[in-house]
């Protein structure tokens, strides 16, 4: 596709359940990023991939959060045992290289009830 694609666009889950969020970056983009946006915390970095490796995962808030990227393309962010404070918009982004424009997807809106 032309832009960064994320799914699902909306997800309501019960507290304690696991969720998987998917990101399909712009074709050819080697760098992939996950951020989240919430009213209370603003925009926060979670993890960055260069190819399939994650040189910077310093923003993952707890060990309930993990992410992987396969084939240098699609990435999955997994949240285990979701808590209400995990409710946020999870934004995926990609760039051609590290000093290029970073393009964001439309986000996955996660609500934990």
């Amino acid at each position: 596709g032309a832009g960064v694609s994320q799914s699902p666009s909306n997800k309501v889950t019960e507290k304690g359940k696991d969720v998987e969020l998917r990101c399909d970056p712009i074709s050819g983009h080697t760098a992939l990023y996950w951020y989240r946006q919430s009213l209370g915390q603003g925009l926060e970095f979670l993890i960055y991939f260069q190819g399939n490796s994650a040189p910077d995962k310093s923003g993952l808030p707890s060990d309930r959060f993990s992410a992987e990227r396969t084939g240098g393309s699609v990435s999955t962010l997994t949240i285990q045992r979701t808590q209400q404070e995990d409710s946020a918009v999870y934004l995926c982004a990609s760039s051609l290289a590290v000093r290029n424009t970073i393009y964001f997807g439309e986000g996955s809106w996660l609500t934990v009830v």
Partner: protein
Amino acid sequence: ELKVEQNPLFLSMQEGKNYTIYCNYSTTSDRLYWYRQDPGKSLESLFVLLSNGAVKQEGRLMASLDTKARLSTLHITAAVHDLSATYFCAVMAGGSQGNLIFGKGTKLSVKP
């Protein structure tokens, strides 16, 4: 720890007027980004500034970077209603290639 501060956080303008949004950051960085966000939408890239003295313009928006002062500005010329949105600046944390630190955003409202 890198901190990014924007001001003002809220800005109400009349159409046709000029104004500037300021973005200060606390430690050295080699990259600064400006984004626009409409309500319920994602972030739209406006500018990437990579060097001291960089100036970029697109339509009624112009961004500049002074790395010595750790300051970027987003200047709005002759505002129109369509520019109403929230504008974020973001700075890449030193030593990182992916950790963008965002300001809190400036909510701009342009009134007729």
